């Protein structure tokens, strides 16, 4: 029988967790709470002696300095209501797993099958609550009912029942291993019903293609030889659904688009991916010639470029939007540990050197009603931030760069972008590290975590809009420590050449990973009965598509398998041989001796015809607001500094370890008080060397309201200008594109599909144009195309969003530049011209407008200027540099000044102007977001040399750094238009999100 070990803080010890819950009850639910205290509960369901239970309670489970414990006796006292929250059966319980291991060390005996330790938390609430209040606290704050269960007891009931009864949330299931056959000789309606009912996300056309395949007499004859009938098995249908899902197959990016522009010109585009993304890289590489630095692009889990002659860099950015909408903590945690596996599973395997995160949320202070299924933006914010914190920090990978972007439409689906970079030797055991192969006869090996029902249908559910019936099972919880153990083992196995091929188990689980690996050599034979399971009762189709986390799939040569498995055991990592790779052209799956799937590789990977996608571009027209003429813009500047998209994100960023591994050179914060917003990150991955890796990103979804071409152009430019600002070299820099779109496929649910598709086409056109001009090869990327919420009445579509990330090099990290002004008397330069480009700006957003004049990127001039500026950095002529983006010149100047602790005196009449003079005003000069501009300060003694290096480019000296802590800007007519103390500006910038 199960026993409850309770561990509580001693009365005198502050309960930080309880205090936080109390604050949240008051803040979120507007209920008054007198006190909240918490108790840890370990439910031990294992044959232990009373002495062993006591040893566990007194030893690993409690801290004698601050805690007390009990066995099968409640510790709770002095409360009005008790709420106990634990996991539902089968949900990853990291604390429970660690507790179990601790008991095994203690007793020296492994647990028997079915034994376990389960963790839960008891919250003791004190205050004048009604039962309904407590229900609201439980479901609204303490418990995500998708993955957790809870019980509530009033103090009186608690006394009467002597507390909570022990509950061991075991998965109750019988070993079954059923395989169903599905009859596809049915009506179209019935075909669609099968797809919808099974969360297959297959269209009628796709269902018909599958139907036709199973009617093929040759297929039927071949199936008979392996004992299969003419109908597909559930395993086959599920494998096809995963492989053909939008998530895995990128059907929109590989579809055929009929595009019509605003002038009626028509164009057929066969595959946006091939026509724009792949072509960009091919053409940039050809242009670079022998300076090409790409090593492996688009074919592996992440892109690989050269770092130097001995080392290669690997980078990938992923999204995990749909799971984060349902379970923000688990979804985001899985997002970060999931993307870690991409560079780790690239080539022969890379050591991970940094993470990046970009989150897009609705306003956390949102106060309007939301559709029933949607979580409040603040809860998503808290959960995502904490999930990524745990995933990144526990994995020992520094989070060096990121941003938070806010727009109300992200209430429909938050965007959670997580990136990870790695480094690997150019050659490992004499082979290029970015290459790998599989030979027929190599063994299929799975390592890491076990398989459960978690994450079933993740790939297919994220290929649909979020709706009220989105499946619970699609959510997983990551376990960074199991993954870390596996990586510790595999990186050592890599150096001993114990495997030939490695890849990640992500979306689609084994069906995808082994399916893709089988494509390398032409087939496989895998036995699902050999797969290690978390608990019995999984059917073969569930085993093959489960997205249970922390697993890698490998091809191990038979002669190395013994050494591989022995080493795995020694490192405490589970590794299992599931079958072997073949070259017979068939994806052949067994359960014991019985064939449960027999899919020709050609049908699986090439059986799907391209989607046909209409696209029609009609430029939107917004009201053109009149720019307000006033004498003093200090108030507008303070309001902009406090705007969600501009304000300090320090309360979030400080929660991320950005310095582990010891290579941090430019940190997220710069300046005299370590709190100015850095433009980009510089990291030294090899501590013995001063070569640095630079990473930055650009994202500006607001411009999509005007034109996605310019949204994309500005995002790319923003990424590169951030990168250039800190000193990144233009000779070795690559880009990654992450598209997050709302569904652009014309359908009943999406009547505006052709417009959204045209937005996607225009974005791709810009991607090609700008990357070509900037010599930026695209090395990897991802698309997430169904970022909508629809419950039958309300539809919320996100604004089309491109996250553009760059990774590159700084030859000597000691030349890096930060954004804080350095000393009074330094000359302030503005590089680049400013124009009447307030369309989509933060300034207009502040005034409730969009406008039409979106910033246009002049790549030719910008690139030459970036090159000249880089020369100035290399010669150490630059004291500080800050990029101009949201909020324009005024915001950049304020940030540089208060970060450095010195004032700035600027004259708008000295700013270079471009375009129509009619639009030139103090407001446009202060707040226009014209692209490709930098605010630079230079010591007076370097003035001449700096101006020489920059000569021939658009730049102007516009003022000086002053000892007084004041930002003073003189307008066109010679009078001050901004005059504000730095302390006041900084406070405006810091206060918005300080308490979150």
């Amino acid at each position, binding site marked *: 029988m199960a026993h409850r070990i309770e561990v509580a803080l001693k009365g005198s010890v502050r309960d930080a967790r309880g205090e936080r819950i109390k604050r949240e009850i008051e803040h979120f639910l507007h209920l008054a709470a007198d006190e909240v205290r918490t108790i840890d509960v370990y439910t031990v369901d294992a044959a232990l002696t009373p002495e062993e239970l006591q040893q566990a309670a007194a030893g*690993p489970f409690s801290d004698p300095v601050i805690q007390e414990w009990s066995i099968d006796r409640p510790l709770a006292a002095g409360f009005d209501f008790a709420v106990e929250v634990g996991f539902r059966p089968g949900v990853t319980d990291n604390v429970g797993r660690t507790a179990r291991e*601790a008991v095994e060390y203690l007793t020296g005996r492994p647990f028997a099958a079915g034994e376990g330790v389960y963790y839960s938390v008891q919250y003791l609430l004190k205050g004048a609550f009604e039962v309904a209040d407590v229900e609201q606290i439980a479901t609204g704050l303490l418990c995500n009912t998708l993955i957790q269960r809870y019980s509530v007891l009033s103090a009186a009931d608690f006394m009467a029942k002597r507390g909570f009864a022990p509950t061991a949330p075991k998965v109750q299931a019988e070993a079954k291993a059923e395989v169903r056959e599905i009859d596809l000789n049915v009506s179209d309606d019935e075909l669609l019903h099968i797809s919808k009912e099974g969360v297959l996300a297959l269209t009628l056309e796709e269902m018909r293609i599958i139907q036709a395949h199973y009617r093929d007499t040759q297929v039927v004859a071949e199936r008979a030889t392996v004992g299969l009938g003419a109908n597909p098995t559930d395993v086959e249908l599920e494998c096809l659904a995963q492989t053909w899902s939008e998530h895995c197959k990128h059907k929109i990016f590989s579809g055929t688009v009929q595009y019509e522009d605003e002038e009626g010109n028509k164009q057929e585009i066969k595959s946006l991916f091939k026509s724009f993304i792949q072509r960009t890289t091919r053409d940039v590489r050809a242009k670079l010639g022998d300076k090409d630095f790409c090593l492996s692009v688009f074919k592996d889990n992440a892109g690989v470029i050269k770092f130097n002659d001995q080392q290669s860099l690997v980078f990938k950015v992923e999204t995990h939007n749909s799971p984060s909408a349902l379970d923000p903590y688990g979804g985001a945690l899985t997002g970060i540990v999931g993307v870690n596996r991409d560079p780790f599973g690239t080539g022969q395997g890379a050591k991970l050197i940094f993470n990046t995160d970009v989150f897009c949320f609705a306003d956390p202070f949102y106060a309007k009603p939301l559709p029933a299924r949607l979580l409040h933006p603040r809860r998503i914010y808290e959960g995502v931030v904490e999930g990524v914190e745990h995933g990144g920090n526990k994995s020992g990978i520094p989070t060096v760069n990121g941003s938070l972007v806010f727009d109300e439409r992200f209430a429909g689906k938050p965007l959670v972008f997580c990136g990870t970079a790695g480094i690997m030797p150019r050659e490992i055991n004499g082979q290029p590290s970015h290459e790998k192969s599989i030979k027929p006869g190599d063994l299929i090996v799975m390592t890491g975590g076990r398989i459960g029902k978690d994450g079933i249908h993740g790939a297919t559910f994220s290929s649909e809009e979020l709706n009220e019936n989105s499946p619970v099972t699609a959510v997983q919880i990551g376990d960074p420590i199991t993954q870390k153990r596996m990586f510790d083992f595999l990186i050592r196995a890599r150096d001993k050449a114990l495997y030939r091929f490695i890849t990640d188990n992500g979306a689609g689980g084994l069906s995808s990973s082994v399916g893709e690996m089988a494509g390398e050599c032409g087939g496989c034979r895998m036995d699902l009965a050999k797969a290690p399971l978390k608990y019995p009762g999984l059917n073969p189709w569930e085993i093959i598509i489960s997205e249970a986390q922390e697993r890698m799939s490998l091809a191990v040569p038979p002669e190395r398998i013994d050494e591989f498995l022995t080493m795995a055991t020694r490192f405490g990592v589970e590794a299992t041989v599931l079958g072997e790779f073949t070259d017979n052209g068939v994806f052949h799956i067994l359960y014991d001796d019985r064939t449960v799937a027999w899919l020709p590789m050609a049908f699986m990977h090439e059986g799907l015809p391209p989607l046909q996608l209409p696209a029609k571009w009609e430029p939107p027209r917004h009201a053109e607001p009149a720019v307000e003429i006033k004498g003093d813009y200090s108030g507008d500047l303070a309001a902009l500094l406090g705007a969600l998209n501009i304000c300090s994100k320090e309360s979030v960023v*400080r929660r991320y370890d950005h*310095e582990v591994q010891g290579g941090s050179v430019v940190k997220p914060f710069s300046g005299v008080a370590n709190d100015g917003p850095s433009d980009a990150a510089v990291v030294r991955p090899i501590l013995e060397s001063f070569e640095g890796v630079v990473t930055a990103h650009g994202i500006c979804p607001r411009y999509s309201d005007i034109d996605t071409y310019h949204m994309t152009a500005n995002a790319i430019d923003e990424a590169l200008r951030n990168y250039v600002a800190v000193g990144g070299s233009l000779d070795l820099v690559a880009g990654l594109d992450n598209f997050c779109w709302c569904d652009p496929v014309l359908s009943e649910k999406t009547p505006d599909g052709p417009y959204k598709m045209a937005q996607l086409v225009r974005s791709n056109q810009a991607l090609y144009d700008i990357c070509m001009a900037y010599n930026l090869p695209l090395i990897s990327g991802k698309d997430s195309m169904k970022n909508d919420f629809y419950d039958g009445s309300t539809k919320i579509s996100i604004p089309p969003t491109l996250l553009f990330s760059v990774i590159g090099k700084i030859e000597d990290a000691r030349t890096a530049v930060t954004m804080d002004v350095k000393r009074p008397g330094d000359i302030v330069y503005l590089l680049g011209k400013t124009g009447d480009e307030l369309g989509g700006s933060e300034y207009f957003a502040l005034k409730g407008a969009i406008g039409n004049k979106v910033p246009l990127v002049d790549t030719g001039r910008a690139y030459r200027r970036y090159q000249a500026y880089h020369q100035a950095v290399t010669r150490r002529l630059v004291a500080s540099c800050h990029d101009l983006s949201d909020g324009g010149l005024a915001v950049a100047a304020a940030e540089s000044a208060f970060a450095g602790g010195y004032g700035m005196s600027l004259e708008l009449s000295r700013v270079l102007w471009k375009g129509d003079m009619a639009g030139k005003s103090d407001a446009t000069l202060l707040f226009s977001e014209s692209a490709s501009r930098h605010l630079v300060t230079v010591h007076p003694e370097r003035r001449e040399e700096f101006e020489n290096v920059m000569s021939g480019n658009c730049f102007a000296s516009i003022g000086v750094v002053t000892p007084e802590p004041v930002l003073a800007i003189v307008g066109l007519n010679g009078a001050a238009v901004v005059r504000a103390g730095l302390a006041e500006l900084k406070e405006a910038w810091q206060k918005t999100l300080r308490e979150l």
Partner: protein
Amino acid sequence: MKKIRAIVITGNGTNCETEAAHACRLGGFDEAVIAHIAEILSGEVRLDDFHFLNLTGGFLDGDDLGSAKAQANRLKHAGVTGTGEKLVEQFTRFIGAGKLILGVCNGFQLMVKMGMLPGFDGDFLTQRTTLTFNDCGRFQDRWVYLKADAASPSVFTAGIEQGIYLPMRHGEGKFLCDSPATLERIEREHLAVLKYSGPDYEAATMEFPLNPNGAQNAIAGLCDPTGRLMGLMPHPEAFVHYTQHPRWTREELPEEGDGLKLYRNAAEYVRKNLV
């Protein structure tokens, strides 16, 4: 001359092994071996072959039972294959041989929870102090000023006049004692080597964020009465070169970072006393 050797234990969630080994080498160790705990439990690597043991930062077992609790339990109970001895015996032998141990962050939490610190009266297995959740309730990554106690017996901080500036990166760093007597003895014997302070290193402070976790008496680092065992929450291995300083682009700084002194002192002590 005989080689001086440092070991850094990794595995099960330790994260700072690479920079800790780098700091040991920069500090003067001839060799700094990164050993996975699996290699120690299998008997391939023995602590006896080293002079300086680094228990460094990370999240051992995810800190699932409280920081470093599960590893403390593992070290106490796990046996070393083929030797018949428990791993904890290698530790006590190492300490008995007069060798050095430095615990940083998660390593400090481990030392405290195993009872290696404060190590009163040669008892290295009784827990008297702890490190628990920061008062601010959150993980923090920020730089802190640490006032050094010049009268401390710590081998590692010898020669540090005023204090050092280092990054802290933890969620459970609030130092607490089991009784006023323990705290009193720690102070009396100058075992509280480092305390959170203001930039002038004048006085210990309880003020957030200078004291980022609310530690009792602002204690950030602790040593045993012999001075050979020390633990601290901030990361000395993360400041061995000026480019790691958050304000290196605006301040004139020496080439070496403040944290390197601890490793130089360790190497010097080993060379003088242990080879």
